[in-house]
């Protein structure tokens, strides 16, 4: 059993262990759950240290045929695309558990669901077989449905139902696309991602486009791409904040991750759909930004800003060149850290004040200086200030977008819209900073406690990641550079 399997099954083992423990023993449950997520995080760090970032191919492969007739297999492997996501997933799960001490009802079920969710997420990023990928994709749905529906806010039932319906609807399209490809690949039966590449080449052009559209819908629901984002505001607002951290930090990245894999598989179709995808990305950025600007609810604001930021990822993917895809991959990590930190901090603030309306807050810097520091740094990073990791990602995407546009006018237009969305982003970020931390003193906001030690640890890890990678992005870039160069090679070879 390789290190990948150990990593994958660690949360599952935690679930089994938790299932045996009595629900009364809350302290033990928390300890065990935290222990297993920490082990998973340490394993991911270990993996990071032995991972060879110069090798573009899959590493640490594990292969075990499950159903030879259909060709499905238990195939695991990682490359430069999944490596940062793995670390991010394990890190954010640990942080989500650190932020979950306020959950008091159904503690056992809650922790089982979180561990199950981590199991599913790790599976998605590790799987190198589409059948396995699809299974894990669906596995993440079940714990999330319960997490939102059981521990959520007032409209939790609608939110969870909505979320599941949207995602299921999307995965139907994804499944159809997968089946369509595997029809052409009877020898391998659509098993490994690489053999799917071969199959995809044999398909007629029209079918390729249709298949890619299926993928765009399937992954686009999760990402989310502009018209398919209806589940997101509700789910984010209603979910308990640790779940929001996972939802925006990692689950959205699953969609982007899948889409990058699909685009590499079908570059010709992607080239045909490129203007459409670029438009969706840009429109999503503006749309999410403008709506975030209108939200009085802090959580809804962060949720809509997620749509805006994931628009950057879509734009980066749609450029189909190296700089753009690098930008997309970086933005996935950046947004994971930034949105994770934002939801964490907003959740902690809500626990203390029981209001999420921005206008209720005032002059918090006097009573919560540490919170103010972290929140301000995170919001500045969210608007893409140089020195934060968000800036590096946005810059790459912008360069990629400009160099991919066919004419100068198009390029300039793209720059204008891109800058406008950044401008709107800074409008709501700065407004939030000023209304949270400055202004007249309100008596009801004078008894708020500052962050405690475990909360400081959680927020500090995320924020220092944001700032450190912003100041020296070299290691982060190198981690994915080889894989992205290889993908770019595949894409440019097939397009020409």
């Amino acid at each position, binding site marked *: 059993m390789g290190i990948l399997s150990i990593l994958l099954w660690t949360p599952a083992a935690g679930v089994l262990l938790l299932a045996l423990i009595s629900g009364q023993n809350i302290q033990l449950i928390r300890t065990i759950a935290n222990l297993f997520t920490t082990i998973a995080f340490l394993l991911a760090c270990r993996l990071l240290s032995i991972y060879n970032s110069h090798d573009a191919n899959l590493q640490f492969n594990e292969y075990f045929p499950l159903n030879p007739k259909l060709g499905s297999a238990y195939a695991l492997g990682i490359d430069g695309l999944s490596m940062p996501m793995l670390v991010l997933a394990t890190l954010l799960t640990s942080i989500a558990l650190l932020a979950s001490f306020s959950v008091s009802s159904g503690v056992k079920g809650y922790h089982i669901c979180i561990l199950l969710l981590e199991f599913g997420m790790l599976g998605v990023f590790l799987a190198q077989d589409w059948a396995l990928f699809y299974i894990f994709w669906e596995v993440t749905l079940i714990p999330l449905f319960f997490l939102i529906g059981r521990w959520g806010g007032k409209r939790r039932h*609608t939110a969870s*139902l*909505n979320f599941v*319906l*949207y995602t299921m609807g999307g995965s139907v399209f994804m499944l159809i696309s997968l089946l369509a490809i595997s029809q052409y690949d009877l020898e391998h039966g659509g098993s490994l991602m690489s053999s799917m590449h071969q199959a995809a080449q044999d398909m007629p052009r029209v079918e390729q486009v249709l298949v890619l559209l299926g993928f765009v819908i399937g992954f686009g629901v999760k990402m989310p791409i502009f*018209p398919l*984002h*209806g*589940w997101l*505001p*509700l789910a984010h607002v209603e979910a308990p904040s640790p779940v929001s951290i996972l939802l925006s930090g990692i689950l959205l990245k699953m969609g982007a991750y899948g889409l990058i894999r699909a685009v590499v598989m079908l570059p010709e179709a992607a080239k045909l759909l490129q203007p459409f995808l670029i438009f969706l990305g840009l429109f999503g950025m503006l*749309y999410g930004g*403008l*709506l975030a*600007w*209108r939200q*009085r609810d802090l959580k809804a604001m962060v949720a809509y800003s997620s749509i805006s930021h994931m628009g950057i990822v879509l734009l980066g993917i749609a450029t189909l060149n190296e700089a753009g895809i690098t930008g997309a991959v970086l933005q996935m990590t950046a947004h994971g850290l930034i949105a994770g930190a934002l939801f964490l901090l907003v959740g902690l603030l809500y626990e203390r004040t029981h209001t999420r309306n*921005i*206008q209720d807050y*005032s002059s918090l810097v006097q009573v919560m*200086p*540490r919170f103010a*520091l972290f929140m301000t740094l995170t919001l500045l990073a969210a608007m893409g200030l140089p020195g934060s990791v968000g800036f590096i990602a946005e810059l790459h995407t912008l360069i990629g977008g400009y160099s991919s546009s066919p004419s100068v006018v198009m390029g300039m237009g793209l720059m204008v819209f891109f800058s406008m969305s950044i401008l*709107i982003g800074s*409008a709501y970020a700065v*407004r939030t900073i*000023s*209304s949270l931390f*400055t*202004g*007249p003193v309100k008596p009801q906001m004078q008894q708020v406690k*500052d962050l405690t030690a475990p909360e*400081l640890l959680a927020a500090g890890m995320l924020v220092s990641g944001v700032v450190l990678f912003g100041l020296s992005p070299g290691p982060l870039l190198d981690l994915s550079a080889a894989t992205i160069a290889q993908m770019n090679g595949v894409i440019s070879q097939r397009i020409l």
Partner: protein
Amino acid sequence: MDALVILIPLMPLTAASAIGMGHLFGVISGEADESITADIAGWTISMSSLLALTLLSADLLGKNTGFYNVGHWLNSDTLDIQINFITGGFNVRLAALFSVLLAIVIHFSVNYMHREAGYHRFFFILSLFSSAILLLVLSGNAVGTFIGWEVAGLCSYFLIAYAYDRPVAVANATRVFVTNRIGDAAFVLGAGLSYAWLDSVNWSNINAATAQFTPGEATAIALCFAVAAFAKSAQLPFTPWLARAMEGPTPSSAVFYGAVMVHAGVYLVILLRPIFEHAPLAMAVVAIIGLMTAVYSFVVGLTQTDVKSSLVFATSGQLGLMFLECGLGFWQLAGWHLCAHAVVRGYQFLVAPSLLHHAHGNPIKPVAAPLAKLRWGYVASLQRFWLDQIADWALVKPVRGLAHDLSYFDDHIVDRIMGIPAPAIRTISSLAQLEEQMIGAQLDNDSDTFAQGSGLAGKLTEWTAALLHWFEDRFVLRGIGKGTVDYGRRLGHIANKVEQSVLRPRYLVLFVFITLLIAF
């Protein structure tokens, strides 16, 4: 032994970050923890001075190579900036002297600052400054020196504005900081020119390559650095800032304006000796400015009535003499003058508060009779030759006029198109709120001003956002989201009804018959 040099600026930096983080996270706060802060700052600077002394003795024994390279910092195209240090000669001597002086002053401050508000802040800034000034004198390239140069200037700003609740202190701090920026600009220009003409920012390369420069190039670079040095060391026409800088606590005045920081300019000129020797014009300028400052400071110093001011003008006068020595080519003398002056002046500043005690029974001598009769000289000296007023008239006033005109343009044209930021109501005090209300700001319905813009661009944003919100609400959230749920529920009801009716006995029997019919 060369590698020790990294630790010398690093130790106080660690102290600064430890105190800063501890204070931020509430670990260090209040009077109870004063000893912790003092210990951190004191021990690290003592360690640092020991290290500097070790390095100095190693240098004297000839065990240093004179240069130590740590690695690359920034690499972009042909620009390659390294982290490197000079570990020999004048730099190390100066580092040893400065670190010892800093250690003495920090130990002095422990009792002097006891129970002052902002005790921890003071030691944080002083440690940061120690790190900066040691980096300044030890760094092997212009960029490292400039980092030290800037951070030292920033710390000076913080300490002048130490009592930031007093408007005078803050105004003076700002004035000093802005004056120093002129010198910083010249420094950046000098470093940029040497990179452009030489492709290197290492001091050793710049000094070694003076023969490659044409006299014009050498003069340009030398003049840029000379202006930077004049600003930092309070030479004419920048001298007035030094008098304004006396707002800070006494130990910081001693270390910044007596012992250490003001010497940075002289240090820079001595460091670039080969370039200056290659540029006679620059040498002449340095000599003349030095002489003028010395005379100016002497004359102005005659009429000062408080101890700090007379010390200030004595300092700038001595610094002027050092520049004069440099300009005349007596480099060795200037170097020793610097060291001696740092020690003496540091001592004088530290004992300044107890001057009356020392001066008892030893009255200050009056000015010589022929000088005392010059009335115009008296007025000019008292007014400090109107330098502040001239600067105000020549620089501040035109800039303010320009700002006024631009502000008019901004108010009447740009704001109409782009909109203005949300009113500053939230960020000011209640008295100001009252005033805003009197001029017609709408304070009561601030819920309505949320997500609203002004001006053309603001309104456009607002309307687009409203339109998108309507779309989102009507179609995406209610239409698809809620619609799906409702529709699903209705379908479920219908299915339930069908099932109920199917399960009635008569239909069940019917189905059985039909099945049998088909089967046979």
